């Protein structure tokens, strides 16, 4: 008679094995695992995953991102007028897809919520076989999805995300950002603020209470204090507060003569509108004209604030009124298809799709580590921001930064911002070690 004997060691071993099997993400059991790397395309097409806010407060920005992606796919596949592919310095893409495969795409809705964004990215990777995920309109979401893509083993080409952390302390080898960050905003904006408002100023910050807001506040404080400005107070406001009047009234008698609104989207529209209603734009403090600064502008959002943006300084990644060849080609292509000019969100996402496709073509593979190496240190021009480099150390694009001002006499509802200075790239560059974080190794998903 055989004896079934359970030993303590045996039980521990089999429990550990069962635990590992159960804990392994489903991604490892998907059919993609059989290939050389995750979701290696085997047919005539390759699938991109566009993860943008289709519902929620940033739905309009997400819709513009999606329009840009659709345009980019058309151009990569050789349809339409070619847009910025005609002006792009790299000529690897020939208008016949990427590596001989036609690009198709799937979309996901981030809802501007980290968990929803991760779920939709996961779905596109596991179910739809997306080789790359791109898009988004929030730093919180970008950092969450970047982490997921790193763990899964696909490339993440970030959309509109401005927090330092995306390519700073939360950077990942599989993640790449074309958009600028708060450090660059601070470096670009400070000299313009000094020129217009002098170096003897007292600033009061209202800051959205999440990763991007903290990052923005930190950068602006750092650069304005270097100018000689003092900071009266930095007050955190809840995201989506709606009515900011209770945070604005203390500014009136605080002795501050500059209000810095570290808000984006709906918060920016509301806080700026209300600050103007409280007469801050026309106020005199310490014998000086009171000033309001909105460090990160979005033309789509500025439209929501209407006339209140007039004369107010900020920065932006790109603006459709730029006169370089690349920008003009993009505005023409986008405007012809949709009837209005593209936003900065549309521009950065279009660039990301093109840059990814180009890197795959140059690398001759879709393998994340191969594509990543092709992007690292890649220098290019013709995409609307002048000579640009994807820095190898942190996967951050370095390029000129635009300082803008709300236009006094707009000629149309799209014409709300004017570019007051194109800050050269050298002025906004910083050592990669400044923002901390580790890229770690690439993950090819095997």
């Amino acid at each position: 008679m055989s004896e079934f004997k359970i030993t303590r060691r045996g039980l521990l071993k089999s429990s550990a094995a069962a635990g590992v099997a159960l804990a392994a993400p489903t991604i490892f059991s998907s059919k993609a695992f059989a290939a050389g790397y995750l979701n290696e395309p085997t047919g005539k097409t390759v699938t991109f995953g566009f993860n943008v806010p289709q519902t929620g407060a940033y739905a309009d920005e997400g819709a513009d991102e999606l329009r840009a992606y659709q345009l980019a796919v058309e151009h990569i596949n050789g349809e339409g007028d070619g847009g910025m592919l005609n002006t792009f310095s790299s000529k690897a893409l020939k208008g016949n897809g990427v590596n001989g495969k036609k690009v198709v795409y799937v979309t996901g809705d981030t809802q501007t919520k980290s968990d929803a964004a991760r779920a939709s990215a996961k779905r596109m990777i596991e179910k739809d076989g997306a080789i790359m995920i791109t898009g988004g309109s929030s730093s919180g979401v970008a950092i969450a999805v970047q982490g997921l893509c790193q763990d899964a083993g696909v490339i993440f080409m970030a959309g509109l995300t401005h927090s330092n952390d995306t390519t700073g302390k939360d950077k990942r080898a599989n993640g790449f950002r074309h958009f600028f960050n708060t450090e660059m905003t601070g470096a670009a904006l400070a000299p313009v603020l000094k020129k217009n408002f002098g170096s003897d100023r007292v600033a009061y910050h209202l800051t959205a209470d999440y990763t991007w807001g903290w990052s923005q506040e930190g950068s602006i404080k750092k650069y304005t204090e270097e100018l000689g400005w003092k900071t009266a107070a930095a007050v955190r406001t809840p995201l989506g507060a709606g009515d900011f009047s209770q945070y604005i009234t203390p500014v009136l008698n605080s002795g501050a003569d500059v209000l810095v609104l570290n808000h984006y989207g709906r918060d920016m529209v509301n806080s700026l509108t209300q600050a103007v209603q409280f007469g801050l734009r026309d106020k005199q403090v310490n014998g000086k004209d009171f000033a309001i600064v909105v460090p990160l502008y979005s033309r789509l959002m500025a439209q929501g604030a209407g006339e209140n943006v007039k004369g107010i300084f900020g920065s932006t990644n790109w603006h459709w009124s730029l006169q370089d060849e690349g920008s003009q080609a993009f505005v023409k292509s986008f405007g012809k298809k949709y009837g209005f000019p593209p936003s900065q969100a549309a521009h950065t996402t279009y660039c990301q799709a093109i840059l990814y496709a180009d890197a795959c073509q140059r690398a001759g593979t879709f393998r994340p580590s191969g594509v990543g190496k092709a992007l690292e240190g890649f220098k290019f021009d013709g995409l609307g921001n002048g000579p640009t480099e994807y820095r190898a150390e942190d996967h951050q694009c370095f390029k000129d930064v635009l300082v803008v001002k709300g236009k006094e006499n707009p000629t149309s509802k799209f014409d709300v911002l004017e570019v007051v200075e194109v800050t050269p790239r050298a002025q906004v560059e910083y050592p990669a070690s400044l923002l901390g974080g580790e890229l770690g190794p690439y993950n090819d998903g095997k």
Partner: protein
Amino acid sequence: MDAILLQILNGLDKGGAYALIALGLTIIFGTLGVVNFAHGALFMLGAFCAVAVKAVLNIQMVTIDPTKTTPWGAPMEIRQPYVEVWFGDFGTTLLDFSVPVSILLAIPIMLIIGIAMERGLIRYFYKRPHAEQILVTFGLAIVLQEIVKSYFGANPIPQPAPDVANGMIDFGILVGFEAGNVVYPAWRFIYFLFSTAVIAAVFAFLQFTTFGMVVRAGMADRETVGLLGIDIDRRFTIVFGMAAVVAGLAGTMYTPILSPDYHMGMDFLVLSFVVVVVGGMGSLGGAVAAGFLLGILQSFASMNEVKAILPGIDQIIIYLIAVVVLLVRPRGLMGRKGVMEH
């Protein structure tokens, strides 16, 4: 001292909005016994009445300027609103006053929406548990939000106050402070006056009209009023419509303070429920008093001096007050015995 005065003023307009929404919620709860989670959506629909009126007044005559093109090669369009083309200066004034003018549209529209909502959906849920009422009205709120978003988009749409009300009122001078120390936007003060006028009108209507008397009697004892041969259901339908109008007007007039977007109702809804609970379920006076009280306390909690002692207090003050009030006075500040207790 001037900072305190400013925060009191701040609390008044916010409190006015809370009070108007909470008043409607309480009326509906007191008469129909329905917990209406779609009430915030009614506030939002009222705000979008202002957006719609401005959009209609702003329908533009488009002429093509053949000498100019857009950056993407299309011919340049020159746009001018028809009201300005047709009526000249009067048209410009009409556009400027689009928010107050939209009250004229908001009243009938919100009345129709309220009555349609009650007859078409809510009445089927009178005898159902509160949980089901909450689910169905919450669902309705989401549907209304999404409809508005599909037409108007997700971004806030600015609705400026008339130029004449865009300035500031210097309250500091009135109470002996230096000029410019306690200034307050004129439109916010107008909103406060408007909300008190609407609240007074609602109270007068319920207090001094026969219709109001029947409604109050119905709130106290629906069955007996029905036995007297009065069609109380029909009157309650009208009361629902009236509550919708109150919420809608609160939204219409709030648009210059908060650029409307499809989600604005939800932000106010949760706070307004807290206001109703703090004021006392079913108590109209309690809802109004709690609305202003919480509005002012929320403003005070945002003062830097207060936040230095209790960081983050501005974000939880309303809920903290609700907890304290419910512990000390379980029926709320002015709650009636027997409401929501069976």
